[in-house]
């Protein structure tokens, strides 16, 4: 049962990450693959505040999310003033730089990782309650992203993606919108990281490397970029499949490479068979039914 609850927590966190990443790369059209570094910032900031400074865990988690949001805005603001392409370069540089810093600073536990992170809710209410918290957070993230994407903000994002010059010519501030949406998505990733840290109580920098970026990108692209349910489906699929393989009773020498091949194989299959992902996005922006009313 504990195994299934832990799997549910991992799936919930992946759903929140993929959904918020979809808001950034899909709806806003911002090219960045550094989402895991904001996940890391949330995890480390929350863990360190709670462990070393006695900050109550819920407050530490919020600080982790806020730090991730502020850090992302600090990366996005100067690069987006130049051009969208610079965000990709700046965010990758930021991801590599932060992870190197984490590996080489003693306060973060270095490459060996951060241990003895205070738990949250598990002792008092059990793993089931934590799983419910994470799944509730994932559901809230999906709902919020849907509300954003199909409301007035989503209309503006769609217009900005279509033609940024015309968008600015109508009086809309494209840079402010990009920074805000990047910070919001990264803040969600930070909160997901904090939830991860206080459940597993151990984090290492290698969990947030470029490989994690590739996994997240695969979830969004395979599921269906710029759709509400595509990243959810992608996250469930790519978290559950590697776990399902472990039930095949294969030798461990084969299991590891097979799990690695799964991502590559899926990307290749989808590239040729269904490039639009499992759930394809339409060409037209649609308001939510509430907006249309």
């Amino acid at each position, binding site marked *: 049962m504990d195994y299934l609850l832990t799997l549910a927590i991992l799936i919930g966190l992946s759903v929140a990450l993929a959904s918020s990443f979809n808001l950034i790369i899909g709806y806003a059209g911002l090219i960045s693959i550094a989402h895991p570094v904001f996940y890391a910032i949330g995890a480390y900031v929350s863990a360190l505040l709670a462990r070393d400074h006695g900050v109550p865990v819920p407050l530490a988690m919020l600080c982790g999310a806020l730090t991730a949001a502020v850090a992302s805005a600090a990366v996005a603001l100067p690069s987006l003033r130049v051009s969208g392409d610079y965000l990709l370069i700046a965010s990758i540089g930021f991801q590599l730089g932060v992870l190197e810093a984490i590996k080489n600073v003693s306060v973060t536990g270095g490459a060996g990782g951060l241990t003895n992170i205070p738990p949250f809710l598990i002792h008092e209410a059990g793993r089931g309650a934590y799983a419910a918290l994470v799944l509730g957070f994932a559901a809230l993230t999906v709902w919020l992203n849907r509300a*954003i994407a199909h*409301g*007035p*903000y989503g*209309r*503006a994002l*769609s*217009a900005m*993606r*279509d*033609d940024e*010059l*015309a*968008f*600015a*010519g*109508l*009086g*809309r*501030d*494209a840079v*402010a*919108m990009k920074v*805000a*949406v990047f910070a*919001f998505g990264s803040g969600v990733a930070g909160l997901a990281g904090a939830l991860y840290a206080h459940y597993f109580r151990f984090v290492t920098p290698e969990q947030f490397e470029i490989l994690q970026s590739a996994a997240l990108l695969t979830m969004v692209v395979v599921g269906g970029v710029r759709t509400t349910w595509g990243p959810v489906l992608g996250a469930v699929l790519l978290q559950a499949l590697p776990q399902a393989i472990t039930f095949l009773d294969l030798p461990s020498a084969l299991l590891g490479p097979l799990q690695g091949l799964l991502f590559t194989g899926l990307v290749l299959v989808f590239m040729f068979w269904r490039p639009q992902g499992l759930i394809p996005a339409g*060409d*037209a*922006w649609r*308001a939510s039914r509430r*907006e249309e009313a």
Partner: protein
Amino acid sequence: MAPVPAPVTAPVPVPAPVLAIEGLDKRFGGIVVADGIDLTLTAGRIVGLIGPNGAGKTSLFNLISGVFPPDAGTIRLDGQRLDGLAMHRRAGLGLARTWQNLRLFPSLSVLDNLMMGPRSYPGERLLRLALDPGGVRRQEDETRRRARAVLERTRLAGVAGTRAADLTFGQQKLVGVARALMNDARCLLLDEPMAGVEGQAYEIMQAVVREVAASGVAVCVVEHNVAFIRDLCDEGVFMFAGRVLARGPVGTLIADPRLTELYFGT
């Protein structure tokens, strides 16, 4: 000998310019697109910018709207300096424009294209959406009502729900103008609104532009369709090589053999 007193004349009221451009210069390397341009636009008048390709007409619109900054000179809208402001801030002060190559939002419906047009769009602020959803909704409803009224004026109400990319070229040109009207602008710049437009859209375009000017907006039109300019504009400005060569009634300008030669070449 006593000085001769100056003749006493009644002062002629000169309307304050809505848009005032002084000494505007811009060059890209060796290419001069604006060379000491002085130009004023006044409320309620339609000015046609004419000149051959490469004269600097669209570049002038780009300088005014902030696509790129000038090397020198000033641009004022109702006395307020625009030349140091970002593009979106200029639109926020009441400067609206259309584009030669349309630049509609193809993924949005016609109505949603217009919804993006007002000076204030509260839906672009995440914090405002979170803290004041009721206020945003009310403003959206108001904007939707205005957008529907503009679509009625431009005879586009029947295609309000159609994706902009699915319209005919003439209709798309009208959507571009309708979207600019949502700004409630003090100054409207129309870049080749008639290129590729014929039939009913032509008549509608003329009527709408006249109506807008009559409401007190300063309008400037770049257009190669000389008949349209002659029928519509109160006066013309002839541009060549980034300079304003002449200003006056359109009929006089196009009858000037020197300007005709520059326009058509020899």
